[in-house]
């Protein structure tokens, strides 16, 4: 036997030994964890069911005029929670074609109806991604012994994406009304009867007259010390106030700020951060600046069952700011078209579509846009938006042409370039990058294009930064370093050449 063969044999032996040991350890581990599961006394009474917000469609009870017993608030809340959970578990079931959890929220007779739908769907390989966005229940009846409730849920807005296998075959939005009979069984309000009494396709009319915006000469704003992280402990009103003064004195009239979805608490918005955002608007008002608020920064889920949570987030923020005079407009999301590849264009667009409607319903008085990352995407949803905005980091030679082309496609609405800029980084990671001089030229040129074509603009950004979070451009140092040098003011606080052209040519 040759030496090589011997070595192969040895290594195989060694490898098989490692594999066997791994399997044995895994086996013991599995046995151990199996023996640690099972009947847990604390779980018997459902006391440990954790209250996590997972489904928060808009729900508004009609004034209570029910027959039977007068209902107390606690019971009404219990009915509301279980009723919404019933919708949620149903949609989870129809998404996965599994039956898990359904029997907690539907009685034995009622749940059979869903089971049979699941079996039809799994046979046909149909799956549904669906959610309800609005409920308007009216309590018709509450029985004297407190065990039975009947309600009519008016105008339930249901959105469904229907798949055959992996293929999306259609999207449906319906407005339906249901008669619901609920029974209190072992602590759960379970659906006993559910009858759809009315249903029609649901379409939100696009606004006939878009809300006007005034000319924007603006800048995307983050403080120098804590970019992408301006709210929370690092929030410094004094710094922001002096930055706003500087922006105002440089001849600009607007800023664009970002509300990060997760760090603002998702569906349960952090009150302190919201207060800071309000403070920011007040500071802007003092400096006579208008604020474009960009919602849902760093949001990337889009899954249909998550929509109600994003609605709740938007509702809290929009309602807190909508009466503020410094507010100029809502940008629903920054560069959502970058998520098309990973989440699917149809899904992202559907979410934007519904979110635009929702923000409009909460605040009909401020214009709404979406900050597309390029001009090609910016015709998406153009009928819905009050004005169109896109970001331009391409070659300046093409800008006038691009803008004019876009103008022919979007004739009736203003178009804003809500981000543009040039990094003045050239160094180890990009020896052929741009100098501060070329940045100055860039801004000089682009300002002349703006004034020739009468374009509203918001530049990127006031400061050079020293730290860029990895979520923004990733970890690659050449990207990080480029992102650090887009400012009009360098990291030592000195104005760069481009500052002269921050607001004019």
């Amino acid at each position, binding site marked *: 036997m040759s030496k090589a063969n011997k070595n192969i044999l040895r290594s195989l032996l060694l490898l098989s030994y490692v594999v066997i040991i791994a399997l044995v350890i895994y086996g013991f581990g599995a046995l151990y964890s199996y023996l640690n599961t099972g009947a847990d006394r604390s779980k018997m009474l459902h006391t440990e069911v954790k209250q996590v917000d997972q489904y928060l469609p808009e729900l508004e009870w009609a004034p209570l005029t029910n027959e039977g017993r007068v209902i107390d608030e606690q019971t009404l809340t219990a009915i509301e929670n279980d009723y919404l959970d019933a919708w949620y578990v149903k949609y989870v079931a129809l998404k996965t074609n599994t039956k898990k959890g359904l029997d907690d929220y539907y009685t034995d007779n009622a749940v059979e109806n869903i089971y049979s739908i699941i079996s039809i769907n799994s046979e046909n390989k149909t799956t549904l991604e669906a959610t309800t966005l609005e409920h308007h229940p009216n309590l018709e009846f509450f*029985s004297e*012994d407190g065990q039975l409730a009947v309600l009519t849920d008016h105008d339930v807005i249901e959105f469904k994406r229907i798949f055959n296998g992996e293929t999306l075959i259609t999207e*449906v939005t319906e407005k339906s009304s249901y008669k619901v009979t609920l029974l209190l069984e072992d602590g759960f309000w379970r659906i006993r*009867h559910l*009858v*759809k009494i009315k*249903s029609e396709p649901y379409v939100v009319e696009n606004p006939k007259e878009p809300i006007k915006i005034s000319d924007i000469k603006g800048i995307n704003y983050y403080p120098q010390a804590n970019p992408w992280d301006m709210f929370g402990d690092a929030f410094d009103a004094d710094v922001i106030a002096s930055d706003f003064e500087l922006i105002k004195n440089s001849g600009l009239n607007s800023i664009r700020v970002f509300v990060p979805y997760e760090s603002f608490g998702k569906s349960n918005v952090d009150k302190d951060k919201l207060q800071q955002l309000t403070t920011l608007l007040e500071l802007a008002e003092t400096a006579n600046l208008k604020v474009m608020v960009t919602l849902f920064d760093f949001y990337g889920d889009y899954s249909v069952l998550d929509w109600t949570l994003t609605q709740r987030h938007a509702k809290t923020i929009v309602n807190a700011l909508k009466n503020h005079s410094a507010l100029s407009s809502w940008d629903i999301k920054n560069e959502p078209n970058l998520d098309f590849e990973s989440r699917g264009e149809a899904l992202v667009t559907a979410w934007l579509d519904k979110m635009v409607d929702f923000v409009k319903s909460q605040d009909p008085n401020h214009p709404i846009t979406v900050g597309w990352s390029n001009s090609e995407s910016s015709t998406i949803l153009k009928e819905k938006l009050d004005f169109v905005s896109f970001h331009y980091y391409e070659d300046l030679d093409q800008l006038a042409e691009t803008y004019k082309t876009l103008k022919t496609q979007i004739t009736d609405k203003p178009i804003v370039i809500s981000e543009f800029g040039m990094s003045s980084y050239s160094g180890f990671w990009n020896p052929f990058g741009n100098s501060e001089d070329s940045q100055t030229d860039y801004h000089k040129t682009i300002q002349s294009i703006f004034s020739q074509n009468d374009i509203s603009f918001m530049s990127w950004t006031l400061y050079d930064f020293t730290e860029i979070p990895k979520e923004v451009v990733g970890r690659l140092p050449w990207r990080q370093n480029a992102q650090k040098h887009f400012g009009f003011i360098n990291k030592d606080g000195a104005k760069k050449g481009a500052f002269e052209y921050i607001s004019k040519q």
Partner: protein
Amino acid sequence: MRLKYLYITILSVLLLSTTVALQANKVGGTYELLSTQNSYTAGDVIELQFSFTGNTDVYLYCSNSYGSVVLNPDVNNSKLRFSIPQSISKKSGVLNWQLISDKTELKGQVNILPKASIKTIESYLGPPSIEAGGTDFTMLVVIPTDDLDNPLIDSTIVAIKHQFLSNQEASDVYTEHGFAYKNIYSENKSGRILISSESLNLNSKEYDVNVVPAIPTNFEINAERIHDYADGNQITTFKTNIIKDRYDNIVSDGTYVTFFITNKDGYKSKTSGATINGIATAILLQPDHEDQWSVKAYVEGMANSNTIVLNYKQAVEDFEVAFSEDKRTIIIGPLKSFMNQRVPDGLRVQLSIYKNGFLENESIESSFNGIAKFHLSPDRFPKGTYKLVLKAAGITKTYTEVRYE
């Protein structure tokens, strides 16, 4: 070389033409609904038919009260046929559908009515017991359903019947939102109401509700005893009369009555009992010395009784005390009761021992065969002068100068 170009040209022409052909196939579909019926009864066979030209690659989305499905067509004779599965068509309510093709957006809905015949009457009755008096009530909720578990259409008539004592009533109610309900009020008598319902000639089973008496009204008490001597041995029994509510119903068995006894020194004792057939009974050991009890009973928070006064006569008039030679064994008795009989065992005798005016020790003995005996150990009570106080049956005897060697 030339051949190669030709080859490429032919290939690309071929490719282009197939794409064009495919596209033509895609845009070519037109569809029209042929079925005209838009109202069905649950359980009917529902079939939607469409005439079409072109593409048969279509689906039918349809959604009933409980969920949504997607169906594939049967194609024949330029017709598309979709049969709605039985499990969808058997549920009442709106069934909306949408034909999914590349181009047209055909949509519509059919209304499925519940069957006209009844299969079950779902009944929910509660609370299961109510109070007499005509203000409290129980509620019967009925949901008449067909054999496919659909609630019948609104305005279905339901007769709700109930019987109580000699009354028998029936009243008609109409379903609304799928159900009907009726409040059934109690009358002045306690007892049991039997309830049933009927709809479309189907009768429910029998349900019953207990009408429990209302809260008790004030009542009287009395006491029974074998004799009125305070012998500390016999018991006095307290009894209420029959406690009733204000409609003359005997209160529920188990109504808890507490008797409060105040003696002549103002000390309170209590004893209690629960009613059976309206009468509560409680007992208490008679005192061992002359006393006067005043007794009053309460059903807490609801009713109370009159106050009765009981006098207890002294049973043990006097007793003898004998000391042993060393005075360390003290024999009390024989203790004699009212007929000079020896007192029953267990009469309490108390000895208190004082030295220099301070209480040294206190010990209690029970009488046995009329005698109680104390022994004072020399280890515990060494040489000296003690004061001994003996108490039994309310009588106190004091020996001030007892000298131990």
